[in-house]
């Protein structure tokens, strides 16, 4: 798999890598100066405006999984595969009203774990933390791997070195700047990624006729333009639910809801969804042109970079390298910050040392960010499976959290037992489906079981939850 068809020389790759590293680390240090207290470091001062709010939600959702998996989806599942990937935007759309509700109910909250603990109690909280932290690791690892694969495919930089570099850069600037650095760099990264994808897409359109692509697909791979491809149709619902589950439960999105200024969250998430919707199609369609352009794809997760390099040559390859680097960094930094918040706030502060002072918490937070980076690096070292295999394993688990969270925010009768069993039974049934039916059914089944269980328990439950208990600044740290 090494050096399959790099489009940049390793020297150019290294120069770009070092320049980008210096830029992001410098910005991390620069914006980090704003983080004068814990709220600044963890939540960017809770006053983020619409432009940064929209860009950070969008950039974080544009991951290696969008820029690398979307072409893979297109190559394997055709047009429906790209549309299926686009449905992940609904995660952002549907989270928009929740972001408003979260800010309203928990003006001083820190993490999604805070909500589950206060709303459903400790047992459900432990299960939720296990799911959420496992998912965070899975996402982080899938992107560390993607970083290595990308740099190897584009510039022939050995997988281990490329992966190490991208993790190191993200750890450093997140460490220096906290959420200020993450959100600030996300804005620049989102613009670079959008402009880059449009440039690559336009170059593809310029170099090949879409009529020709369609006719080649019709004769060689008609399955890819089949309007009734069953696996793809199931993938739409599966991806939709996986996307919603990812956004609803993950602290990556909750921390942004807490970080945005009052009145901004709903608008920012709606706009981010709108801006994100076309990305998987714009990034994915180039894979469908591979046959017409005579590019031999030996590893499906490399189809995006290989195609872009083939079409754009040297100058274009530089753009592609930067775009991929940005799409990875914008998510890795967010995950490092949000997962560290979850570990520090929910595990260290709430379980281990409730009396810890702000300075101590910030120091622990920095150790956790480093620890997360080292852990991800160790797991990424042996290149295992394709990106889809790694990521979709977490799908049923996160899908099982959708309903406990959505109902927990709006229904007073949603009960702790219901949330607990919804997450346990939803995850188990989804994982059984994952192994026995296929990855594209797992989230669907996990979410369906979770919905039934949460609803049944809520119907039986007579007790009504008091919303004011969610605001710890009013009710005290122990609720």
């Amino acid at each position: 798999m090494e050096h399959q068809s790099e489009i940049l020389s390793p020297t150019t790759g290294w120069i770009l890598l070092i320049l980008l590293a210096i830029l992001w680390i410098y910005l991390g240090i620069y914006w980090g100066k704003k983080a004068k207290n814990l709220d600044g470091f963890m939540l960017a001062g809770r006053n983020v405006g619409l432009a940064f709010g929209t860009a950070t939600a969008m950039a974080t959702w544009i991951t290696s999984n969008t820029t690398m998996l979307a072409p893979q989806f297109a190559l394997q599942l055709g047009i429906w595969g790209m549309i299926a990937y686009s449905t992940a935007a609904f995660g952002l759309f549907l989270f928009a009203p929740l972001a408003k509700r979260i800010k309203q109910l928990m003006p001083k909250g820190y993490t999604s774990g805070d909500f589950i603990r206060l709303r459903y109690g400790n047992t459900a909280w432990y299960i939720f933390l296990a799911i959420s932290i496992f998912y965070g690791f899975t996402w982080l690892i899938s992107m560390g791997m993607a970083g290595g694969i990308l740099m190897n495919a584009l510039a022939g930089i050995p997988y281990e070195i490329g992966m190490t570099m991208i993790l190191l850069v993200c750890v450093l600037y997140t460490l220096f700047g906290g959420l200020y650095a993450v959100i600030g760099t996300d804005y620049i990264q989102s613009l670079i990624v959008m402009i880059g994808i449009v440039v690559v897409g336009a170059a593809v359109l310029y170099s090949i006729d879409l009529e020709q692509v369609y006719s080649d697909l019709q004769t060689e791979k008609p399955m890819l333009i089949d309007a009734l491809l069953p696996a793809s149709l199931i993938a739409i619902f599966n991806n939709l639910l996986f996307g919603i589950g990812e956004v609803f439960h993950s602290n990556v999105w909750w921390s942004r809801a807490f970080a945005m200024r009052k009145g901004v969250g709903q608008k920012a998430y709606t706009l981010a969804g709108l801006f994100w919707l076309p990305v998987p199609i714009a990034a994915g369609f180039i894979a469908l042109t591979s046959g017409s352009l005579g590019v031999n794809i030996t590893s499906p997760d490399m189809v995006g970079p290989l195609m872009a390099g083939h079409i754009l040559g040297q100058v274009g390859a530089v753009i592609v390298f930067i775009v991929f680097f940005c799409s990875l960094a914008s998510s890795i930094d967010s995950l490092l910050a949000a997962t560290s918040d979850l570990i520090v706030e929910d595990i260290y502060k709430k379980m281990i040392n409730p009396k810890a002072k702000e300075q101590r918490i910030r120091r622990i937070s920095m150790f956790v960010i480093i620890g997360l980076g080292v852990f991800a690096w160790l797991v990424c070292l042996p290149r295992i499976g394709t990106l889809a295999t790694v990521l979709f394993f977490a799908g049923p688990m996160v899908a099982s959290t959708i309903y406990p969270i959505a109902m927990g925010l709006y229904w007073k009768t949603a009960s702790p037992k219901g949330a607990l069993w919804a997450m346990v039974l939803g995850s188990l049934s989804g994982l059984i489906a994952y192994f026995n039916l296929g990855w594209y059914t797992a989230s669907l089944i996990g979410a369906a079981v979770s919905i039934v269980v949460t609803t049944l328990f809520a119907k039986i439950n007579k007790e009504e939850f008091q919303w004011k208990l969610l605001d710890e600044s009013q009710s005290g740290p122990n609720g």
Partner: protein
Amino acid sequence: MLFPESIFELLILSSLFLMSIAAIALIVMLLRDIKTKNLW
């Protein structure tokens, strides 16, 4: 049953068009936030 060619083309062209608009909108939003001192 296959997707009609026109839908195939429309899907791709509209996605690229929407992304261009999104990039411009993000820049406009940033300028507005800077002007109104609402960046963060």
